[in-house]
């Protein structure tokens, strides 16, 4: 599989979850695990550009696919990706644990709807749980991200 542009071999253990493989084999610990049953969305990554739960996939299932994690959005030292920048500007994160999952979902959402309506924003982030923000600032961040992306 290709992860953030680099080709990696699949793990030897066929039952290794993709989330565990990314975190503990490849050291990409920005992908977080909040429930391990596909509800919280913390482990959201992009698989061939579409948001998926990496805790619900086996790593071997990602063989032959393009995986993008939060670390793949902006190189170290480079400016933040517009979605990351928007979360910063709008106070869209507090503890930061759910944040990578939200950011990846929003990247996917804006890929589909570059100018999302209020309903599309709520729908687009309705697969991610946040316990800190109450979502208001995240909603603002999604709209701001659309603005920044369209500049």
């Amino acid at each position, binding site marked *: 599989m290709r992860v953030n542009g680099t080709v990696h071999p699949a793990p030897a*253990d066929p*039952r*290794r979850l993709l989330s*565990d493989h990314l*975190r*503990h084999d490849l*050291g*990409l*610990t*920005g*992908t*977080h*695990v*909040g*429930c*391990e*049953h596909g*509800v*919280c969305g*913390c482990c959201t990554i992009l698989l061939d550009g579409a948001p998926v739960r990496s805790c619900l996939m086996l790593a071997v299932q990602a063989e032959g696919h393009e995986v993008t*994690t*939060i*670390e793949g*959005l*902006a190189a*170290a030292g480079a400016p*933040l990706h517009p979605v*990351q920048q928007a*979360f*910063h*500007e709008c*106070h869209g*994160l*507090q*503890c*930061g*644990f*759910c*944040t*990578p999952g939200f*950011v990846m979902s929003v990247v996917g959402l804006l890929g589909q709807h570059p100018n999302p309506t209020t309903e599309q*924003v*709520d*729908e687009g*982030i*309705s*697969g*991610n*749980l*946040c*316990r*800190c*923000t*109450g*979502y*208001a*600032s*995240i*909603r603002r961040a999604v709209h701001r991200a659309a603005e920044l992306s369209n500049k």
Partner: protein
Amino acid sequence: MTTRWFGARVQRVEDDRLLRGRGHFTDDIDEGALESCMVRSPYAHARITSIDVSAARALPGVKAVYVADDLPFGHTDLPILIPHPNLTHGRTQRCLASEVVRYAGEAVVFVVAESRYIAEDAADLVQVEYESLPVVITPEVAAAADHLVHDDVPGNVAAEMLQEVGDVKSALAAATHRKRLRLRFERGAACPMEGRAVWARWSETEHRLTVYDSTQSPTSIRGGLAVLFGLPESDVEVIAPDVGGGFGPKIMLFYPDELLVPFAAMQLGRPVKWTEDRQEHFTATNQERGQVHEVDVGFDDDGRVLALDDDFIHDGGAYTPYGIILPIISAAQVPGPYRVPNYRVRFRDMYTNAIPTSPYRGAGRPHACFVMERTLDAIAAELGLDRVEVRRRNLIATNQFPYEVGVVWQDGNQVIYDSGNYPALVERALEMLGPRPEGDHIGMGLSPYVEGTGVGPYEGAHVQVLVSGKVVAFTGIPNQGQAHATVWAQIVADQLGVEVSDVEVSSGDTRRFKWGVGTFASRSAIMAGNAMAVAAGMVAEKAKHIAAEHLEADPADLELAGGSVRVKGSPDRGIPLAAVAVLSNPMRYAFGGGTEAATQFAAKPRPGSPLPEGEQPGLEATGYFSPVGSAWAAGCHAAYVRVDPKTYRLEILKYVVVHDCGRLINPLVVEGQIEGGVAQGIGGAFYERLAYDSDGQLRNASFMEFLMPYATEIPKIEIDHIETPSPLNPLGIKGAGEAGVIPVGAVLAAAIEEALGVAITEMPLSPLKLYELFTSPPRGEVAPLA
């Protein structure tokens, strides 16, 4: 001190690494750590008859399988954190149960292996035989005492406490009107997105135990580990790195894993890690909020409360490691922002076969607020008065501060409200709420509240100006998302006249600051914030003193601004703070970074010794803050809701919050705290219910069935602030962390009651619960509103 940064909407400085996925959470740490898991009791109450771990131990890749007998502390009861004379029957669990388990989820066996996968395979091979015992679930069942949770605790009563102000019996007897209510609040779960986690390493050569713990109190963990392992505290370092939300249960200590992981690391000579999974969070991490209140209130024709008698039982869970702080807080907070001239409150803390309870955001307050607000709504309904008007008539007036409630507070002192303006909160909330929306099945709820914040005993901070001119600031309390790195930087930057970006804050790391208590009870802004101001203020004074010598000026004529110490009114006559930091450390050997300026031939010779008696090298200081009492924040929430009469779906049409947490350090951060708190309150009031069955099994121990709200359930929340500074701390701050959650249940109960015309006497609600209430309303309780 200028207040250039204090009060400003400064964007957070901690965001960048979190947004890039470069945060540092406990489970992110690997370093060749062994991984572990628990075998937990499937029974809520059972006697263990045998444990067989032989097959688990034989599995390749398994490094150790521990039962109680394998631990030197295996038969020692874990500590009671907050002993209290009324806690006459305090009981705590042991690290691993070996005789009786008292909640489903209690740890029995601890497995360490090369990977989590192998550890879980091994856990499946562990054979534990149980003989089930009768289960006591819910505080009412506990109070009936047909069965006991602990054989030696009669009546299941861990503690009983009675307090009285005035003469309740006489005042009730003399009151024109009297009303009795039974009000029930169920347990809730905090559910931070990051569960709990512990990573530990023992270095034999350095004789040092290093523990990373997703805890709200690393300093206390360190103290406890030092005692348990017989190490000097200087050999134990505990770090709470990035913590993915806390909300209370991470302040509890010790959970078994917090001892087992360091123990195994010391025994096995390898780092060991344990990471809670979500199911374990539901079955083994502390919960809160279960209480049943029996209220008897006496009032006059105008709706003024004359006497309130509240007798409540508190669901303590299977053990009482946290003491009786929760019911003490509830008892103290029931009167809220109202005058209650005669108040009697008795509670009994009941053992049940469920997870122990300890604070969860709000900590005893949401239920207390619910009790008082439901009572006032009942009074209004009884007298046919406007609900807001009844509140106005009972609010403590602005000229009554400091206001003594007459009951004891969680710090052992009396509850004394330091300052506030409660009528202004209510009026502003009404103004923001605006006119009632058109339509049927619409209801309005309004609830003011108070919150005792910033409980002591103290916190500290260390601030140092480096020779680069950058500033580092440390405090012992950890951060779980409250933007400590930003708000402490604002406070320090103001004191030192530098930019926020010049200040780097580190918190929750005992290597950098070893004293302190923890992040809980809406206390960090008050406690560590003021400690930061004290420490930075000391640094500023020292800087002036050193610079005065250099500038040949009077220290009183100097100010810190623009990164320099300079003469007031003559900004050109100054010395950069970096240079002052160099001069603060008289040296023999320069080490670069401009330090040659402080060597013996470069510096202007100072009369006498280079470091005069009483002075210390370095432009740094450690300061502490310890308040005389809690600062009482307050607020008022109000909402319009609509309930669908067919599906009982709740629609929150408008939700407004007026909040008074004294002086605001950073409105952006405070508003985030409020928005998050309200969302958690809405979840707790209408979506999240811990569905225990009579066998003590939690039937919905996953996010599939425990319905935490998504964005689709949380409305826009409109916020305004008023600022009544606290006289109890130099910065005038009051805490803000828990305020958002406190009155939500009370507000939604009132609004839904009005929308549907059914009496609401319990929390949480749900569409199903509303359907049940609508089709068979309870009798003899709150009369439905007209």
